[in-house]
């Protein structure tokens, strides 16, 4: 069971990255390659606030939210909005990811930095396995986020507007909704979310300049397995990737770990090309 907990915790981190990808995708059909890097910046801000400046957790959370939301807002203005098509945005957001990788290394160095967890750091026994409290929080957060965001999507005006934008951006605009403004604020909100999550991801992964690259690919696989645009899909995809990765490394060998994840992706895409929870859109021609 310890192995299952470890796989689920890892999967929760991938799911959180995939949820961030989805938020931006729903609002602007942009795949933000720098989402994992934004979360990485969040872990560094958390380290600076908690360890260097010794600020209270609440202040650090606000700091991380503001800093990373600002970084995401700048990214939207510089690398997304001026670029007309989504294919080119893949390149520009990848460029932002590279810049963030370099900047974090320049500012904080290449060694891993410990981000303390504000809760207990002692292992707990649960259902026959051992797990760190922060890992349980990560799993809980991933589930909670999906539930809350799904509820907001169906019950709030913003959520309904977002779904409309995901379905048909032009039609939504004709209904008088400022789609550019919403896309900008959702982009910034995905950054704010990544910043806040830095406080929870950092204690598991450390703040390290290679974290973004490590999370970006698996987050994407989680998204593709779950289905682009589906929040429950991001959760299921992330947890599936984490579990398959851990179980394959244990029973097949580490060299088969990544291979097993991509076999899973292939199988899912061959049977359901839109992902487990993705919806096929019919187009009138």
């Amino acid at each position, binding site marked *: 069971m310890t192995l299952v907990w470890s796989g689920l915790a890892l999967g929760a*981190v991938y799911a959180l990255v995939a949820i961030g990808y989805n938020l931006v995708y729903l609002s602007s059909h942009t795949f933000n390659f720098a989402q994992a890097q934004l979360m990485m910046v969040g872990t560094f801000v958390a380290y600076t606030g908690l360890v260097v400046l010794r600020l209270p957790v609440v202040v650090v959370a606000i700091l991380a939210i503001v800093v990373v939301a600002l970084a995401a807002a700048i990214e939207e203005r510089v690398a997304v909005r001026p670029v007309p098509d989504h294919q080119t945005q893949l390149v520009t957001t990848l460029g932002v990811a590279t810049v963030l990788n370099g900047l974090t290394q320049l500012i904080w160095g290449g*060694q891993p930095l410990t981000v*303390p967890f504000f809760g207990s750091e002692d*292992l707990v026994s649960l259902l026959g396995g051992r797990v760190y409290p922060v890992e349980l929080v990560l799993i809980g957060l991933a589930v909670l986020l999906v539930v809350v965001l799904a509820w907001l999507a169906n019950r709030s005006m913003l959520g309904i507007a977002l779904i409309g934008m995901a379905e048909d951006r032009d039609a939504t605009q004709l209904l008088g909704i400022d789609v550019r403004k919403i896309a900008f604020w959702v982009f910034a909100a995905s950054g704010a979310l990544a910043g806040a999550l830095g406080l929870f991801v950092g204690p598991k992964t450390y703040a390290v300049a290679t974290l973004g690259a*490590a999370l970006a690919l698996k987050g994407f696989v989680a998204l593709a397995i779950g289905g682009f645009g589906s929040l429950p899909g991001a959760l299921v995809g992330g947890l599936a990737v984490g579990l398959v990765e*851990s179980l394959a490394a244990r029973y097949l060998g580490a060299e088969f770990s990544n291979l097993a994840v991509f076999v899973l992706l292939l199988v899912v895409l061959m049977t359901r090309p839109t992902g487990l929870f993705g919806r096929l859109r019919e187009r009138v021609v």
Partner: protein
Amino acid sequence: MTRRLAAAAVAAGAALVLAACGGGTEAAGGDSQKPYRVLVTGGVSAQGVLAANSGTSILSTKAGADVVNAAGGVGGRPVEVTVVDDAGDPTQALTRIREAINSDAKPDLVLMSGPSTISAAILPVLNQHDILSFCGAPTADSGDPGKFPLNFDLSSPADSVAAYVAEVKRRDYTSVGIIHGSSAYGVGIGNGWEKALTEAGVTVVGNEEYDVAALDMTPQLQSLQSRQPQALLVDGYGAPVGYLLQSKDRLGWSVPMMGDLSVSATSLVTNPPPNGVLGTPQVADLTMQVPKGAVKNQGAPPADEMVAAMTRIGPIPTSLLNAVNYDAVKLAAAAAADAGSTDPQAMAESVTKESVQEAAKTAVYSRYAFTPTSHASNALPTDYTFIPPSTLKDGRFGSGAGS
């Protein structure tokens, strides 16, 4: 007209002969006032750890030059150190080295701080221009005198493996597990451990690899745990070391861990919380392999002399693992004294003599055991020690837990 041409040809020939004679005199080190130019490469403007490691490497070169100059220089010539900032980029390194070679101040000795990609880029050019060199980050063939007759390696995974075998035997372990990263170094050392320990009669219950980009090593450790080894040999650098310690803790597995040189170079294990895990239960079972010269009160007197010389110039940014260039300058001075010249070929021949390596009084390793057939470092197993994690002071580890 024919006579004039013949006279001109004779004059030109004579000039060539004289020039050749002059060159020969210079190569033999006749001009004792001419500086002995040592060029050291390093990623001064690189990012993070590489820059810090280069800082120690360059500092050690300057300290070596100070000590050697105080004793009369290299072959009577005062040592002059030039630093080349390669930014950790082989292309930049190659360009800067070519510029230096083609300038009026051609280097007599080149010291490479690493990484090995830079050594691989530079070595053929140094070979082409017959320049003596010492390499802190070896390549697969940099220690082969057949390919690079004037280069000597200052580190080698092979000699650290031999030290592991000696330590495992000393602790009476009969079975061990191995876990290593998927980098070229990690795979090399993991396979080296397995081969050497098996040959020494120790049972290797498992040799597990992890992806260096992975965030959790619980599966690999659980696999090894199920086979109940008496000790765990660990390779890792940076964040993976932390993930390994977390994963072992999660499994509740209490087994002695023997970390390699790269584990000791990870700041997580040399810093107490909140910056690291030093002094926490996670590192209670860990010992790390380090050269004795990098441990307080365990190195020979030359190590104290090196630290004193380095701290006179400035603070030492990282562990003395990166200070082998100090030894390089001292080896060059001892070789020139033995050869009676600063001719690179003669010095290279002298470096392979045991008497010269003894006379050099090197600090990080007491001997590199170069021979005419191998220019790879062959440091003695007794030059290494296994210590619990500790803080670094003046580049040296304390000899006790957490000290």
